[in-house]
């Protein structure tokens, strides 16, 4: 999204993650206009430092479902970010929070669908 000209700010508790952001880039992350903040999403100070107050979209995609659900709701309710997306691995909770008005992406659901269609497409066709 950075390469499309959007302003992108990343928040991560591990300073090392910055290195990963630059893999495959010919310039530094900041040189390309990106922002990087070290902190956890439950600290509102860190969210503000990362620029949540002026964000048009907020994506909660840490490796913890619970963290993502909580932070996404903070972004939605407290900072009123117009577009909020949460990554939720647990399909049951992803579905329930979607019904509650949260935009959720469930990688498990997506993988199941893909695997299922791969199986169907890969199965020998019935010859009539």
């Amino acid at each position, binding site marked *: 999204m950075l390469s499309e000209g959007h302003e992108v700010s990343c928040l991560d508790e591990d300073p090392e993650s910055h290195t990963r952001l630059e893999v495959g880039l010919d310039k530094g992350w900041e040189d390309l206009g990106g922002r990087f903040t070290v902190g956890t999403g439950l600290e509102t100070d860190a969210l503000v430092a990362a620029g949540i107050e002026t964000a048009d979209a907020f994506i909660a995609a840490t490796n913890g479902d619970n963290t993502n659900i909580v932070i996404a*709701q*903070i972004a939605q309710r407290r900072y009123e970010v117009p577009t909020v997306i949460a990554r939720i691995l647990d399909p049951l909770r992803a579905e329930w929070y979607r019904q509650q008005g949260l935009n959720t992406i469930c990688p498990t659901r997506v993988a199941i669908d893909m695997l299922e269609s791969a199986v169907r497409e890969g199965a020998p066709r019935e010859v009539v």
Partner: protein
Amino acid sequence: MYIIVVGAGKVGWNLARELLEKNHEVTVIESNRRRYLTVEQELEHNVTYGDASELWVLERAGIQRADMVIAVTGDDEDNMLICQVAKEKYEVKQIIARVNNPRNRPHFDLLGVKPSVSATDLILRLLEHEVPEYGLVHLLDLQEEQLEIIEMLLGKDSRVTGRRVGDLSMPEGSLLISVLREGKGFVPNADTVLEVGDEVLAVLDPGREDDLKELFGPASGGNGTG
């Protein structure tokens, strides 16, 4: 009552014991296998193994018919979300959540998880109560009802000692409800004269503490310790 307790740590285990003694029906949910096996030796069928963040675990524990869900794990996010789904998805009437890090308290409120209990806050309250230098002690905070009850110890340099209650111009939204003198409490009337060493209780709208401190505090300001 049927009560689900999430987390079988020291808090959850002892809580479950007390509730069982009071003849409530209790299910404790614990996600750590070893801890579960330890607790199970005593609580037997009243403890179940699983991650209560997952809806099916809650359903297996019978959340649909639970009267109360108490989340006391060591993880604030777990406690918040378990109580949120208990209240909003399963329409459990009463929820109680434990706050581990007091800085997370606003998040509990934001998600509608009330009441929440923080040990750190409780100790702070106790500290305020035990250390009179603080001057003003919060006895009760009813956030929903927008009411507070506070206690003030009148020191030598208080502005109101020797004055009639009827002559005090109490700030709007506050009311003097009780005076504790020499270990006895009574409801003051307009002719009650306040004395040094009195502990006065007042009920007030939130945010009026400063007005009361101003009225009851030391005449000189400064750091009078009463």
